[in-house]
């Protein structure tokens, strides 16, 4: 029973970590709390589903296509709505409030657009992986193992990007000190646009995986967005390892609390944990004190 709950928690945690990664990347590089991020997840799932339906491609081919699509959308949204604000005020609270207001507006528009295009009915998305694995008492569907594998691949890819490439280096420089990065001649706008693309692609992957496990529907973005908030605060806003550890931890806690304490109140536990972490260690477990 306990081992099974731990395994379930690991699967859930993988998806949570994946959802939180794109969110925390944007915050780290651009100081943007992106409220529209959950909607990118949702659109990612719909893009994948649409590619699968119209071209008949299997899930694993459709997913990268959709990831490119959402990455482009994410960049376009950044260029249209957020870049003008980031140009004006890098540090003032006023600028920060405006950024949040704009992403809240995007949340409304993207969700409404999905409802108009695809309707509100939940849809099934099939990954095309069947069968189960048994280790001792623990039962795991192959589908869920694939979820964990994809998450691991994307995390490795992200680490490679951040620590082994020039653009990753530029990105880390901007995250550390934007004025300094500007002063040494980095094109911050272009790097931040690139981060939005990566973040969109991650959102698409997380959303599509969620869609195969549950259902694809316009309202599916709300819950992962809230989870991403909890995770990035838990792990530290802008911290990549924090998002991974935080995601796995929240997935495990939720599963264990749901199984052993109260299923109805399992989300309440994560939120209370969030508030406790913020009060005891406001910068998060992996965050730097400001």
């Amino acid at each position, binding site marked *: 029973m306990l081992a099974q709950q731990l395994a379930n928690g690991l699967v859930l945690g993988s998806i949570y970590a994946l959802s939180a990664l794109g969110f925390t990347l944007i915050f780290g590089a651009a100081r943007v709390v992106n409220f529209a991020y959950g909607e990118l997840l949702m659109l990612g799932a719909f893009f994948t589903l649409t590619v699968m339906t119209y071209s008949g491609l299997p899930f694993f081919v459709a997913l990268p296509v959709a990831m490119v699509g959402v990455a482009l959308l994410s960049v376009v949204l950044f260029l249209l709505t957020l870049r003008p604000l980031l140009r004006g005020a890098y540090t003032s609270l006023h600028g920060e409030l405006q950024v949040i207001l704009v992403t809240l*507006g995007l949340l409304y528009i993207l969700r409404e657009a999905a409802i108009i295009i695809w309707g509100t009915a939940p849809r099934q998305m099939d990954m095309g992986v069947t069968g189960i694995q048994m280790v001792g008492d623990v039962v795991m569907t192959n589908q869920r193992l694939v979820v964990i594998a994809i998450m691991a691949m994307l995390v490795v890819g992200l680490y490679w990007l951040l620590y082994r490439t020039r653009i990753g280096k530029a990105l880390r420089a901007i995250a550390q000190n934007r004025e300094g990065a500007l002063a040494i001649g980095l094109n911050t706008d272009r790097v931040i646009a690139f981060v939005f693309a990566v973040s969109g692609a991650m959102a698409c992957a997380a959303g599509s995986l969620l869609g195969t496990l549950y259902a694809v529907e316009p309202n599916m973005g709300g819950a992962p967005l809230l989870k991403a908030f909890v995770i990035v605060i838990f792990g530290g806003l802008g911290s990549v390892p924090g998002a991974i550890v935080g995601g796995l931890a929240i997935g495990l806690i939720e599963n264990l609390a749901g199984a052993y304490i109260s299923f109805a109140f399992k989300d309440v536990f994560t939120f209370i944990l*969030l508030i406790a972490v*913020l009060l005891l260690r406001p910068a998060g477990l992996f965050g730097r004190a400001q």
Partner: protein
Amino acid sequence: MRELAIAVLAAVMIAAPFMLGDYQTYLLTLTLIWAILALSMGLVLGFVGQINLGQAAFVAICAYTCAILRQRYGVDFWLAAPVALAAVVSIAALVGLLTLRLKGPFFILVMLAFAEITRLVIANWQDVTNGPLGLKGIMPPEPILGLSFDTKRSFYFLALVVLAVCLLALWRLIRSRTGRMLVAVREDELLSEFIGIPVMRNKVIGLCIGAFVAGLGGLLLGPFLTILAPSQFTLFASVDMIVMAVVGGVGTLVGPVLGAIFLVYVPEFLSFTSHYRPAMMGALLIIVTLVAPRGLLGLADVARGLLARGFGKPRRESGERGRAG
């Protein structure tokens, strides 16, 4: 001139329900309640300088406390209301003491978590709140001082009086010491602390006043809709209030009221289906933030400036939000 305008407006608002039909009175009452809620958000946004995504939770707590006291324990509305308001202000004080230390995005995210906890508790505490189905058949307030509130018209006047009293009280507040300290803290926290303003205390007071006004809106909301359900108090309820405050003009008292009028009546006149309303809210929020950060009032100022200069060179609108009133 200003007094005259206020007097004319008051006369129009008092005469309105006698000239209009039931539906228009309903719509006007809805506008008044939204105006109260938007005002509470405008106060936190404009004078504490924070986005409070937990405002809907304050509304919910007050509305539910009052309705539960009345329905389950048979308490009179006029007794339940102050109890509910006291409850919501104490909760706001507690939450504020814990969270207002947090800077920037952290406050926003914790208040969102607080709102979610409140909503989840309401949705899952079946015995008391009746869960997702909500509380039904909430009666209008009991008669008091020979006034009864069981017609649409009388309820409209109740909402009108509450809004007027709120506006007057907040108008006095922002001209008081506390109000000026709030503005100082909003503009520069470090400097305010340096010149001896108790920053934390002022922020908590600001949040509590916001919660009180939000609670007043919640008290009216229950009897007005006759039903309360957790689905009414999601993130989107708070965002609706933000849109109204921002569209009207942040940092003013008239702004949120204008925003409420605008956002209730514009979809009504353009006969938008309810389907497109959220998209419109989102688009408005983005456009106003990017193009006219001071909202309708800012645009009115620009228009006045243009008229005064005889359509000279258009003055570039600045992002300043220091004005009050």
